[in-house]
């Protein structure tokens, strides 16, 4: 498909010209090299199937002048995979000698590279420059063959690629990425071996690796993918069948490059990219049905039954007017059954929301997938796609000769890579990989080196919210998260790395605002209100897709915020059934679904930031956290930090608050920006730390953690209470790791543990202080009741029992009467709740039973 616009692109590519001949070496004239190459590889060449290719068999005379003729387009060195000549007639295919494998293996058309290429090779020396638009810039290069319009010399290119395949060893490879491969052996040779075993004739080639190996080859690949990739195909097939002559493949190996350039944003595509190899990321929004696209039309003469094949050229078939056999005119008819079709699918992709500037709508691009890439992706998938960017002029109407001056653009897909599929396997560095410029990294590192970076960042967090320093610090640590560890080998499964935080406090203490801020800050954040969400809204539900009529799983907020933060406002207003789904998510970080025949477990490695209001509209300082917010303690214990946001009510605070608010209202935008760290910097800082920093505990830090834990347990044990559980230790570790991440440190040190301890204690002090004794009592959060309250409950129950026994033999009593009696007897206040609890505990002992307003004795 040659579009008129390819010209500027080609012009640009030409400045790399002089480099090519020098790498070839002046000692081997192209013509000689060609001959030698042909004879050595001759037996690997596809079987000549037409007169044109016949000339290229080793025996055929070698004449360079041939190459410049249009017929040279079928030279083996750049044989078009889609050419009918490659297919041959069925009879010619049988002729392939058994010993030669390339011959025996049919080549498969590659519509992804364009259905038709008319690209003759030109000899820059013999051809006047005006003929091809190329500038003969190398005066001493002698004869040099390049594909028309490019600077690609097929032989050189092939050789270079073979060298790459044979020699490339990835210096940066890591074990988990290339499971089962020997890292010290050439990577792609191992992959070829894999192909010979598995039999899937597709070789995915990472362009970045090509670049690191041979920048010039990479440049050619990017600029002239249409010419270079078939060359790669040839190279790899030669190599493959040389090495594994006995392999049987369905068709010849196809090279699929990916990772071209840096992964680009759809928004940055411009006319310069036309006909080049590009990689962009996006989300699939629509896929079409399968479209059979005719590649080759089969015509049969109605008179003499002579048949001929015509290649489809830019969507048009040149119907032969005269039968070559019997010379009858208009006797040829198209036979659909014998024509060759290829599969094609239209896919629409849309920019990922993360890539978009604020205030604009996402762009979409059309992608065509061919052959086996059809149906590889579904709407909703996030993918990286590598392909060739195309532009086709639009015709206003077949009748009018003027055209709409607009091109239709699309991408011919060569390679898909699902980014969320990788997330399922737990490898997310690729999806998250935000490319930071050198400068940015430098800025971030400078910032990290500052001694007060922790304070700086926490004050940059939600500057419009006043004070609450510790809460901001807690949220900051939550944003960084702990180090992800995998204990699945030992049966523990994944270890939660995310920090969960609960904010509770008076209404109007800007809890929602904090949540909104966090939601806006993190790329994968979800914001939901407990009042408006149902269990399915949080987890996932099954619905029928209106388009495909298939059952699809629609994921809810918790799954969507995988690797992000799920902000849940009005946590207390959530229904119990909804809340119950959080149990699994908040500790195991997975979500199990069993509905409508779909049983699966989804990852939900999300940090939860929740806000809850007290049950009575105002926080009651005389009650414990549990009593104030009435949340099940099983859930509460899953929060690493529980903060109270209360109105402190003292004069100095009021003054500072007032000052803060007033200045908020009249400072200009610029002043604010000077004062605080930019939100963008903060965002990058967090993204960088999350991606690249994986702190591990140092020896001292482990020691400090152990001590801290033992201390915490000791505090309680003196009073017969337990103030720490293993969960608290895990929390401490996570917080310490997060703090180390803030410092960009690969090691968790004592200072990190100190801060984790401090913050943990602060949060405990606020939320787990027993209002009756003033002591920190973790059992409030773990059992829902403080140790003193439990003791008190026991006492009341005993007192009640005594009271009933004192009444003698009365099988039934009035509830109210009993309460009044107990109140009259006791010197401390007996609340109704306390009384109920006492009754319940007696009922548990099977001593009595409560029905409505009557209490019956059982014994």
């Amino acid at each position, binding site marked *: 498909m040659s579009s*008129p*616009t390819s*010209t*500027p692109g080609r012009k640009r590519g030409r400045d790399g010209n002089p480099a090519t001949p020098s790498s070839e070496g002046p000692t081997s004239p192209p013509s000689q090299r060609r001959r030698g190459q042909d004879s050595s590889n001759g037996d690997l060449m596809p079987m000549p199937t037409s007169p044109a290719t016949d000339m290229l068999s080793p025996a055929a005379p070698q004449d360079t002048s041939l190459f410049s003729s249009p017929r040279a387009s079928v030279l083996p060195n750049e044989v078009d995979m889609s050419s009918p000549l490659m297919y041959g007639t069925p009879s010619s295919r049988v002729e392939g000698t058994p010993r030669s494998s390339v011959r025996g293996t049919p080549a498969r058309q590659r519509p992804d590279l364009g259905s038709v290429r008319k690209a003759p090779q030109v000899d820059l020396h013999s051809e006047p420059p005006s003929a091809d638009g190329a500038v003969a810039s190398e005066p001493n290069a002698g004869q040099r063959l390049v594909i028309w319009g490019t600077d690609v010399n097929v032989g050189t290119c092939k050789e270079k690629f073979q060298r790459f395949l044979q020699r490339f060893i990835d210096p940066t490879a890591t074990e988990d990425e290339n499971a089962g491969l020997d890292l010290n052996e050439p990577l792609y040779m191992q992959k070829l071996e894999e192909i010979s075993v598995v039999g899937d004739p597709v070789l995915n080639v990472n362009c970045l690796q090509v670049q690191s190996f041979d920048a010039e080859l990479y440049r050619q690949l990017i600029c002239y993918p249409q010419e270079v990739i078939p060359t790669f195909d040839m190279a790899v097939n030669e190599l493959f069948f040389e090495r594994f002559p006995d392999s049987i493949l369905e068709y010849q190996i196809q090279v699929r490059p990916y990772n071209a350039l840096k992964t680009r944003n759809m928004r940055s595509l*411009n*006319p310069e990219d*036309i006909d080049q190899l590009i990689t962009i990321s996006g989300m699939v*929004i*629509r896929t079409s049905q399968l479209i059979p*696209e005719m590649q080759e039309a089969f015509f049969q003469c109605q008179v003499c039954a002579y048949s001929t094949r015509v290649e489809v050229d*830019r*969507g*048009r078939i040149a119907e032969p007017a005269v039968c070559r056999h019997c010379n009858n005119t208009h006797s040829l008819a198209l036979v659909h059954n014998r024509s060759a079709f290829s599969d094609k699918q*239209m896919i*629409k992709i849309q920019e990922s*929301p993360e890539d978009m500037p*604020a*205030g*604009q*709508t*996402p762009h*979409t691009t059309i992608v065509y997938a061919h052959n086996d890439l059809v149906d590889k992706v579904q709407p*909703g998938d996030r993918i990286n796609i590598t392909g060739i960017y195309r532009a086709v*002029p*639009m015709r*206003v*109407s*077949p009748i*009018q*000769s*003027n*055209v*709409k*001056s*607009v*091109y239709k*653009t*699309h991408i011919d897909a060569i390679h898909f890579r699902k980014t969320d599929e990788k997330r399922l396997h737990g490898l997310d560095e690729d999806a998250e990989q935000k490319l930071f410029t050198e400068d940015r990294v430098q800025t971030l590192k400078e910032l990290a080196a500052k001694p007060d970076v922790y304070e700086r960042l926490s004050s940059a967090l939600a*500057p*419009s919210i006043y004070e609450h320093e510790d809460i901001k610090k807690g949220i900051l640590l939550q944003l960084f998260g702990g180090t992800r560890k995998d204990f699945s080998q030992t049966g523990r499964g994944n270890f939660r790395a995310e920090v969960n935080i609960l904010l509770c406090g008076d*209404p*109007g*203490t*800007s809890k*929602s605002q904090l949540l909104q*801020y966090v939601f*806006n800050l993190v790329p994968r954040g979800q914001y939901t*209100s407990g009042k*408006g969400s149902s269990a399915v809204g949080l987890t996932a539900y099954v619905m029928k897709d209106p388009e495909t009529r298939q059952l699809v799983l629609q994921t809810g907020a918790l799954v969507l915020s995988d690797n992000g933060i799920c902000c849940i406002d009005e946590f207390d207003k959530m229904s119990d059934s909804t809340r119950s789904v959080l149990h699994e998510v908040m500790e195991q970080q997975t979500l199990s679904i069993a509905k409508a025949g779909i049983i699966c477990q989804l990852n939900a490695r999300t940090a939860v930031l929740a806000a809850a209001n007290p049950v009575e509209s105002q926080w009651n300082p005389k009650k414990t956290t549990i009593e104030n917010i009435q949340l099940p303690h099983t859930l509460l214990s899953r929060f690493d930090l529980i903060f109270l946001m209360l109105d402190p*009510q003292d*004069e100095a605070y*009021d003054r500072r*608050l*007032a*000052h803060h*608010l*007033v200045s*908020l*209202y009249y400072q200009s935008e610029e002043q*604010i920006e000077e004062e605080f760290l930019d939100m963008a910097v903060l965002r990058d800082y967090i993204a960088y730390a999350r991606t690249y920093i994986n702190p591990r505990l140092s020896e001292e830090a482990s020691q400090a953690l152990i001590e801290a834990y033992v201390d915490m347990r000791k505090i309680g044990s003196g009073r017969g209470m337990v103030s720490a559980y293993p969960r608290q230790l895990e929390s401490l570790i996570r917080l310490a790791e997060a703090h180390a991440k803030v410092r960009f440190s690969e090691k968790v040190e004592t200072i990190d543990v100190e801060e984790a301890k401090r913050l943990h204690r602060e949060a405990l002090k606020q939320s787990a202080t027993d209002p009756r004794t003033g002591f920190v009592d973790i059992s409030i959060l773990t059992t829902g009741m403080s140790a003193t309250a439990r003791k008190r409950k026991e006492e009341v129950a005993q007192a009640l029992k005594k009271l009933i026994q004192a009444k003698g033999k009365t099988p039934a009593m009035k509830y109210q009467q009993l309460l009044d009696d107990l109140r009259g007897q006791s010197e401390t206040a007996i609340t109704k709740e306390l009384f109920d609890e006492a009754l319940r505990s007696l009922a548990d002992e099977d001593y009595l039973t409560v029905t409505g307003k009557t209490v019956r004795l059982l014994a």
Partner: protein
Amino acid sequence: STTGESWSLTLTIIYSKTDFSNPKSGWEAKVVEFFKDRLKEKDAHTWVPSLNDVPLHYLKPNSLVKFRCLIQDMFDPEFFMGAYETVDPSTNAKVLRCGRYKDVTECGVDFNSRNTVTAERQTFYCVPIPGENPWVKEISSSSRVVPSTSYAPTRQKRSYEEDDMDDMDTQPQKQREPHSGWELVYIYFLQTHGNGDCKRQETEAPSSQTASASHLDLNFPLPGEKGPSCLVKVYEDWDSFKLNDTLEVFGILSVSPALSALADEKDASSSILDPTESMETAEEQRVHSPPASLVPRLHMLYARPLPHNNPLLPSATLEDNSAFLSSTLSEMASVRAELLTYLTHVLLGDALAAEYLILHLISNVYARRDVLPLGKFAMNLSGCPAAALYTQRFYQIIQQLVPSSFYLGMSLQNMNQMRLVPKKDYVANRLVSGALQLARNTFLFLDETHLEQGQLDTTGVRNVTALGNLISWQKVDYDFNYHQMEFPCNINVLIASEGRSLLPSDCQIHLQSQVSPPNMEEYLSNIQLHPQTSSQLNKFRIYLSVARQLDYSISDEMTKSVEDDFVDMRKDDPQSVSAEDLHRMLVVARLLSLSLGQTSLTRDSWLRAKHIDMLRRSRMEQHQCVNGNEP
């Protein structure tokens, strides 16, 4: 138009043999510069006919027009032939032509020419500003000068080739202005007309236009809107535009019938083998290439962002127009007093509510601190009498004062059925608009007195949530099916309800009617819609728009004194004043100062703000527990 003369400025770019393909020549920038300069001359922009007022078929194709609009949707960027060569089949002569500001190429394009330059442009789908009130339309169309392009409607029957010829061959009137290496010819028509004739023709907008448009969904945000929508082609700097921006676009009108031909002939001639054919669905075709007679194309030369759409204000920004500003500022206090009297009357004699209403009408989100929008002042007017359609009457009066507004009756049916939040339609590949896709400073009136008992369904819950988000954060989360996207907005929301509203608000004021219920009917019928002379009404309109745009500051002393006040108030009773209250009082003080034309906070204004807030709150205490929406 009073001069009896009409002007038209028609710009045509003639493509000569010069080098359009050389990107360095910078001729594009020169065109735009030239054009901007011309528009600055005197009131040149009033010469340009507006798509808002003049029916499309009266406008000359390829002429310069303007359009006051809102960007409703942004389509994908498109590549086009920025320069191309045509070959004359008879002589084989090649001519280099320019593809900018045009939709269709000339005949005989040489696709293999090496001089072809591919360029990129962006398409915006623009609609007239949603909810623009009739008085705005009236005033802006009467202030313009009737263009000479007003010719008989027979004109539209001419084929487009003739039009092209017309442009190309009006040689005698051309002034050649040779520039370095390129050549532009600007044609000025200066024609004198007997005015009356044409004007009459124009104003009778043919009903056929709207009727034929009915089968095509023009995607207006608000129901019942009329007016042309337009595909605006942007050649430069499109990243600087945002969705929902309001603009005045100056550009070249293109209504080439060839564009519509595409849609019509498609079915007949579609061939499977043409790869370009299968790309778009029929819906997408309809949306992205609607008939040009219904949705004209406008090739943007220049766009002026509109900070407001009040035609009574000078078009230059307030800073640039100090004379106007100082004259209005001096009058502010007196106009305010008049307006207060008027609104008190409208609000059944409640002066406090009237004062708050003024504050509400001039409120404006002037900045955002992280997620917090500053300056918003959503008001809940509770205690509205349900009788005698009071709320509707009230809205009609406000409508006369603000440039754009929308009345949303919160009936159960409306909440369950209306589309408030825009949603992406992936089949047609467009953003289907919703009632909350509004321009900045639109007055949104939510009438809760219509709410009856019943159940909100899923849509209803989502709509109520969207309204809540709008009020609390001044943002709307557009639905992109696979994800949501947040668009900030700046909408003045007023909720009229009987009890406390179920929606959040920045301030609730309970209406204290001075009119006894039996007399209500009569009182209401006596409130006149236009009690003022139009000059007084215009004064109010200018007043509200200007007050909103003033700058504001707080001096250090005032900061100190506000702090002291706050500390004192908290000392007496910590429960009485919270940070939330201070937030609100600061907004009230700001709006109060601005309403008086003061650009910085004074002690008096602060005390007054405190005072009215206190009055309002004491009134609220009396009306607690009216319904279950109290906190």
